[in-house]
């Protein structure tokens, strides 16, 4: 059922591509109103006439009501990129949907959701961001969970000679730039700032901060050597190939890191979104999250 629906866009796409190729052909050769150009026009018209996939309406019509939502759009914090992509096939199979992701800094995602609610599930890296979306009346509060936590680490480029034993080591003169996710909008940056403020060195570190769009961009800044040090999640450092962990922020010193997950309202297929949320809070997902370095909590808490 799902496959047949997906054939149309594929057909459109291939028609459009073939039209492009044929147009190119028409341009290259110099016959005036050549066959290629006519064929290109024909393909284009056909592509334009083919109906847009009325995916949701079709899904509802086929099995009247309880049909699985064909696609669930998940807006998720950048730090969840690898682990969620790993979980997607199993989650989709268990909940009868296909997960489509939009990864970015949580603040950016919240802004996108508030401007045009095109997301079914929001997985934010802190409660502040989720509360912001909730204030706009878009969060399905009954499905809201806090399934994950994480830790902060200080990283340096693979070959660095710097040594970090405490927060104060980020403020020594030889450290010129410290990459953080932008604390104004990204949770990872807010957590890092909270840690540095608590340690009393934020004022000194502030002027060296290289603000990045999301935590993975902060990681990339360190890996490329553009920043001497960076503060990212432990899970980001774990997937890094050209950066190494210099210091792990002890739980007692750092802020409490909480990932918040919820289905979003005013969307078709809310039931499926709730199932996806529930599955991501379940035991099967927890095992994968743990393996990726996340700290999980018992479901439902």
């Amino acid at each position, binding site marked *: 059922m799902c496959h047949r629906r997906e054939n149309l866009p594929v057909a459109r*796409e291939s028609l*459009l*591509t073939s*039209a*492009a190729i044929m147009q*190119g052909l028409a*341009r290259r050769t110099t016959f005036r109103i050549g066959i290629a150009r006519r064929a290109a026009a024909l393909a*284009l018209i056909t592509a*334009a006439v083919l109906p847009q996939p009325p995916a949701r309406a079709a899904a509802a019509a086929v099995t009247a009501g309880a049909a699985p939502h064909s696609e669930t*759009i998940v807006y998720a914090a950048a730090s969840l*990129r690898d682990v969620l992509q790993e979980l997607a096939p199993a989650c989709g199979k268990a909940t009868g949907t296909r997960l*489509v*992701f*939009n*990864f*970015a800094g949580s603040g950016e995602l919240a802004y*996108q959701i*508030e*401007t*045009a*609610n*095109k997301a079914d599930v929001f997985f934010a890296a802190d409660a502040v961001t989720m509360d912001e979306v909730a204030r706009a009346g878009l969060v399905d509060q009954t499905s809201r969970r806090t399934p994950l936590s994480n830790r902060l680490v200080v990283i340096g480029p693979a070959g660095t000679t710097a040594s970090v034993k405490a927060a104060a080591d980020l403020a020594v003169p030889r450290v010129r730039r410290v990459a953080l996710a932008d604390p104004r909008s990204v949770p990872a940056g807010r957590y890092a700032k909270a840690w540095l403020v608590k340690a009393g060195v934020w004022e000194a570190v502030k002027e060296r901060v290289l603000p990045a*769009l*999301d935590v*993975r*961009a902060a*990681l*990339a800044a360190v*890996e*490329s050597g553009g920043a001497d040090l960076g503060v990212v999640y432990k899970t980001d450092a774990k997937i*890094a*190939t*050209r950066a190494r962990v210099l210091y792990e922020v002890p739980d007692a010193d750092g802020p409490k890191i909480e990932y918040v997950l919820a289905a979003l309202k005013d969307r078709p297929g809310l039931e499926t979104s709730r199932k996806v949320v529930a599955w991501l809070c379940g035991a099967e997902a927890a095992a994968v999250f743990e393996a990726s370095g996340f700290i999980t909590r018992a479901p439902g808490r």
Partner: protein
Amino acid sequence: VTPLLISLKVALCSTLLILPPGIGLGYLLARTRVRGRSVIETLASLPLVLPPTAVGYVLLRALGRHGIFGVAALGIDLDILFTWKGAVLAACVMALPLVVRSARVAFEEVDPRLEGVARTLGLGPIRTFTSITLPLARRGLLASCILGFSRSLGEFGATIVVAGNIPGKTETLALAIWSDMQTGRDHDAMLLVGLTVILAFAAIWTVEILQGRRTRRA
């Protein structure tokens, strides 16, 4: 490969959408002397000089839930933001000035006396346009079409604001390069850069050839 397909789809759709208004405006600016012509011309060129993020932001607010074209105002959801249609819209707005400008030049190169002759021989204004002006401006218009296509292909700033950066949906080549950069996948980024260089080279080269022929003929 998906970003390439999305890019081609977006650029083709946007080119097709802007050709009629682009050519129309170009003709208007080349041939008529309407009052406020310079204002129209300036307005049509604005996206060329404005920061793409500014253009994107205006579109985002207009189409957003509380904007003038939003769900609240229209009663229906146009479903443009953060879908591939959003990318098409952004590309359209950003590429329109290029199409208008080059179409105008193409029309200006057509000798108005030829049109006059056609009119004296009894052709109506519309027939004159379709059978004299358009064929004579053909090469220039084709170049303008390719310019619009290439501009659409490379659009980044307005696209990321209006369409987001959703892999498999709105992640065009330009956005995929950005994502790969941000996540440190240098190899993939380089691959996509190579792809865009090939595409851009092919497009601009075609324009050069078309223009070269025109000058030789003149």
